[in-house]
């Protein structure tokens, strides 16, 4: 039906038609993004600049500029402490999860019997890690490493350490398994990129006399650098969004607290969001730099 028209005109028309169809497919998402993300995000930002009181008739707003933010940062003793704790815990957990999931993925990439059984085991936590379940397990002391009960002197030694050193160590001791439990999806991501590495590279290296150890450092690890970045970002976001996260619980609690309110908790949400983005940016820049350096 387009046959009679000049060629270039038909080309342009197809281009536009294609773009329109494409937009149609994602239209629902764009509207949803506006309604369920942009608007609420803007409202939360607006609330964070106000003193919000909820009454039977509706919401009363009183504009107070940055007071909610200054209060969270300078007056509230709990929030900043929790925020620092969250940063430390995330930075402690991140390398453990990265290394652990990479090692497990390397194991599961080998050929051996009963591989399926082990794969099932290591992926199991993804299915069951909900907030209340984790809370119960931590409360009953099921998440510390069995057999790793410390002797009295070691405990005293830890108790003598400065607070910011003591907290991460205690966190490690009490929730080590928990940290590992956050590795399920990461193991899968590593596995899938391990399987994408071309086997002929290994064969060529072996012919040139490289040992398995050398192949790992020279071939496997560099090929995983992009994946590691993705896994790191995924890990940070998952840890930060987890509903048992102390900062999130505190913000949630303050929403309904007498001295808190929606305005105050909104301000804290934004501060938390900002810290999360900052963490992501730091990790991204660090790892991206290293990845680039490795590739030359």
């Amino acid at each position: 039906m387009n046959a009679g028209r000049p060629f270039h005109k038909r080309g342009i028309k197809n281009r536009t038609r294609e773009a329109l169809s494409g937009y149609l497919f994602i239209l629902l998402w764009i509207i949803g993004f506006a309604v369920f993300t942009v608007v609420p995000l803007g409202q939360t930002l607006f609330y964070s600049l106000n003193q919000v009181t909820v009454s039977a008739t509706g919401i009363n707003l009183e504009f107070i500029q940055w007071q909610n933010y200054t209060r969270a940062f300078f007056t509230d003793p709990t929030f900043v402490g929790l925020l620092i704790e969250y940063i430390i815990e995330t930075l402690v957990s991140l390398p453990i999860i990265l290394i652990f999931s990479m090692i497990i993925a390397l194991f599961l990439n080998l050929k051996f019997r009963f591989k399926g059984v082990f794969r099932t085991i290591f992926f199991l936590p993804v299915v069951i890690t909900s907030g209340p379940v984790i809370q119960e397990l931590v409360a009953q002391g099921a998440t510390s490493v069995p057999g790793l009960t410390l002797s009295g002197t070691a405990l005293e030694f830890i108790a003598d350490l400065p607070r910011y050193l003591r907290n991460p160590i205690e966190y490690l001791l009490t929730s080590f398994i928990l940290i590992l439990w956050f590795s399920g999806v990461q193991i899968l991501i590593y596995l899938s990129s391990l399987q994408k590495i071309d086997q002929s590279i290994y064969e060529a290296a072996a012919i040139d006399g490289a040992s398995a150890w050398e192949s790992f450092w020279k071939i496997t690890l560099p090929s995983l650098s992009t994946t590691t970045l993705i896994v790191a970002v995924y890990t940070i976001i998952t840890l930060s969004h987890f509903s048992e996260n102390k900062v999130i619980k505190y913000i949630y609690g303050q929403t309904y607290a007498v001295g808190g309110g929606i305005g105050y908790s909104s301000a804290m949400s934004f501060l938390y969001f900002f810290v999360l983005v900052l963490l992501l940016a730091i990790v991204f820049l660090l790892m991206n730099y290293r990845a680039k350096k490795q590739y030359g």
Partner: protein
Amino acid sequence: MNQLKHFNLKSFLLGNRTRYGLIFNVLLYVLLIAIGFVYLYPLLFMFVTSMKSPADLLNPMVQWIPTEVYTGNYVKAYRVLDYPHTLASSIMISLIPSVIQTVVCSFVGYGLARYRFRGKNLIFILILATFIIPAQNTAIPQMLTYRKFGLLGNINALLLPAVMGQGYKSAIFILIFYQTFLSLPKVLEEAARLDGASDLKIFVKIALPAAIPSYIISIIFSTVWYWNETYLTVIFLEGGIQSLPMQLSKFVQAYENLYPPGTVNIFDRLNEAVKLSGTFLNILPLLLMYFVLQKWFVESIERTGVTGE
């Protein structure tokens, strides 16, 4: 005899180019079993403790093997959790949104993978942004809006975002479908287009059937994540729908309503065995689902390649 002659002790122990040696194999299994045990420890601990009778709990000699098969804890936890009821609502609020979310995300993923249009990169950045923005930055205004329209405590509060492609962790599913459709051959779709089929028809008749594995994977993962989600469900559904994890988080309170502390004898007081029975009942449906569908769970992502660089 000839074979024995060729038997090489060194290669048997250390392995050769085609086979791992015995030492390596033993080391591998020892390591995997050790890590596996540590990994499963919380679950074992939970299961064993939940089977202990009150007498066993107090007995320091009983560590790993209870003296009797005691199911009393489960009977109590079953009642406290209001199991049939909360189980049904949990299934409802996880399965329905995840099916809807999967279908909508497949649309979006298809649009991004198959069509050229301006602003695609921006869309990708925004999709990533929805993944990064914490729920509490958007939840309160949403909640207030839902309240205005009387949607609080109603499953629609979860369904509406899912219908608009903004369901829980939707970015991951969009990326899965983007990756899937990108890797599928285009030839059939182009042939159908030349035959005059509409875009929607091409999607439904050709692209969708080819992507069935991705649909199954998405629905499974989405169901699990919706099931385990408690932050949004508490804000949006509290007072209307009570899911299993929600009920678990107020286990103590619910227990004391059923068995008031002053009126029951010492053996019926709330103890950790009952709590862990409740926790176990909470994850039991997911465990069953996992063992039935585990092929999909584990082999899936390897095939769809979530990593999409």
